């Protein structure tokens, strides 16, 4: 055991008795350490670590059509995926979803964070309150609230559009607009988080840069363009990755607003996993293969973020 090895190393005492006591004390304290970890380790082992393997094993199986026995099929589920037009569609939908929510959401967040960063004597708590409040709203509540806003007849969105002379679409049942509807709802729910992180980033920028720029006569736009944005870039990078990962994990809004439809128009990678695993006839092996691919995508994003974030800490 590695335990006893390290104990010998760390106690090169000549006195055998003393060594024995010392060793015993160390074993006891080590056992105590493990004891404190046991509850968390048991839960994480059963519900996180083992499932990493179990999920992969599951992805190599298929349920026999009769008898419900599980058959090993090797990598068949994976090879099938890339020939499956529905899966290709989900890849496209998720890509569109990410492209549609992340850059736009970040631009909005930075614009708001810059405005919020000005020190103001009054009401700054109030501005923050209104802009941050979506952070505590769940995906299900977001779905319900937006379903009401998108209501084709009495919804507020189409009413406001009509005031501008635009005839609003049937948001949720339109093949062209269903995904956009979900995107808007998700951008809204993520906004508070993005603004908070961006604002913290802006407030960490050394004010002397701004003072120097002002001496040089730089106007507001120049200050934003040449000081705020470049110095905020590590934060933006972090936010970008986090938002891409989040956009791949959106579920509640889709389940409530569109259920992946119409005709797969909002059937993202995750929604497709859920659908194949739990709706109608369960294809859990096939769903697990999809889950594994999604995991790999998210893992790559996480690694990119860790590397980038490490650099950021170094760089500041």
């Amino acid at each position, binding site marked *: 055991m590695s335990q006893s090895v390290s104990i010998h190393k760390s106690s090169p005492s000549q006195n055998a008795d003393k060594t024995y006591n010392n060793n015993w004390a160390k074993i006891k304290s080590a056992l105590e350490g493990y004891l404190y970890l046991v509850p968390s380790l048991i839960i994480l082992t059963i519900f996180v670590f083992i499932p990493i393997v179990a999920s992969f094993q599951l992805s190599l199986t298929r349920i026999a059509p009769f008898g419900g026995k599980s058959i090993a099929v090797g990598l068949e589920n994976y090879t099938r995926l890339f020939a499956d037009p529905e899966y290709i569609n989900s890849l496209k939908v998720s890509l569109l979803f990410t492209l549609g929510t992340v850059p736009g959401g970040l631009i909005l967040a930075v614009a708001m964070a810059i405005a919020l960063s000005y*020190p103001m004597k009054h009401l700054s708590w109030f501005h923050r*309150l209104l802009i941050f409040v979506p952070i505590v709203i769940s995906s299900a509540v977001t779905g319900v609230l937006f379903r009401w806003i998108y209501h084709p007849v009495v919804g507020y969105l189409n009413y406001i559009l009509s005031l501008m002379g635009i005839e609003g679409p049937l948001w949720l049942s339109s093949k062209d607009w269903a995904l956009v509807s979900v995107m808007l709802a998700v951008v809204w729910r993520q906004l508070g988080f993005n603004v908070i992180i961006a604002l913290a980033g802006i407030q960490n920028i050394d004010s002397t840069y701004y003072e120097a720029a002002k001496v040089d006569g730089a106007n507001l736009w120049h200050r934003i363009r040449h000081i705020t944005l470049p110095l905020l870039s590590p934060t933006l990078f972090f936010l970008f990755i986090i938002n891409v990962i989040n956009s791949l994990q959106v579920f509640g809004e889709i389940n409530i607003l569109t259920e992946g439809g119409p005709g797969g128009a909002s059937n993202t990678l995750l929604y497709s996993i859920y659908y194949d695993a739990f709706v109608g006839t369960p294809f859990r092996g096939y769903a697990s293969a999809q889950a594994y691919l999604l995991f790999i995508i998210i893992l790559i994003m996480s690694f990119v973020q860790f590397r980038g974030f490490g650099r950021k800490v170094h760089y500041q």
Partner: protein
Amino acid sequence: MSTSTAQIKPARRKIKWGEIGLHVYLIGIGLVVAAPIILAIFTSFKVANDITNYPPTLLPEVWTVENYITAWTATPLWRFFANSLIQTGTIVVFQVLFSILAAYAFSVLEFPGRDLLFYVILASLMVPFQLTFIPNFLTIAKWGQINEAIGPNTYFALTVPFLASAFGIFLLRQFFLTIPKDLHDSAKIDGAGNWRYLWQILVPLSKGSISAFSIFSFLGAWSQYLWPLVITNEENMRTIQIGIRFFLFDQERGADWGAVMAAAVIALMPTLLIFLVAQRQLVKGIAMTGLKG
């Protein structure tokens, strides 16, 4: 994180027009951002005619609490709410307790493999729930065949995968590490063992971090959706998040939007209250960790 030093400084002593403009801009944006919540609250107090009237109005013409009575009693929404309280309460209590214990081991105690185990736990943060929920569902389903009390449609099933939190362990460990070792040494001299030192000295000193983590834990648990959706199929075990979805789909046919909005307001009220009470702490926590929990 120094928040005091650096801000974009506006020109001093100029006319305050700029500042007034900024206020207008920010309030405008803020109202748009908060609109879905504000509209839901007002709609939940409207009578049925008022809601379907075109053009829609902002404020109710007649204020009524009828929708709340409908929402609370028509479906067992009160039951969903109670389920959510039990589920969330259980998750928060265990996450906090287990995280304190593990964080203590990782910050104060010394034993072989400590750092390796810590990194393993940290690595679990990179495993998305989207990967684990299918095998976890199968695990619980299998347990249910042995004993229904630990199978699907139980509070046990709703909570057990989330009783430990790698995020909590990390957060509390970071805080415990800032507490001087001398304190532990002098406690030892006074005859306090690890258990007493942890609960009588370290935990009271870490109240801020622990309560911050509790808030994150509460928000995360209360908002859960995917797991409660797949692990419960009996109506009386639904959480409020799943409950409002089914309530919505039931009511939509009758187009009782007032009741739906009342249900949504009931579902968001606990987290909204937390936000109003602990906004500062919450924002600081997010800014510091870059995580939502």
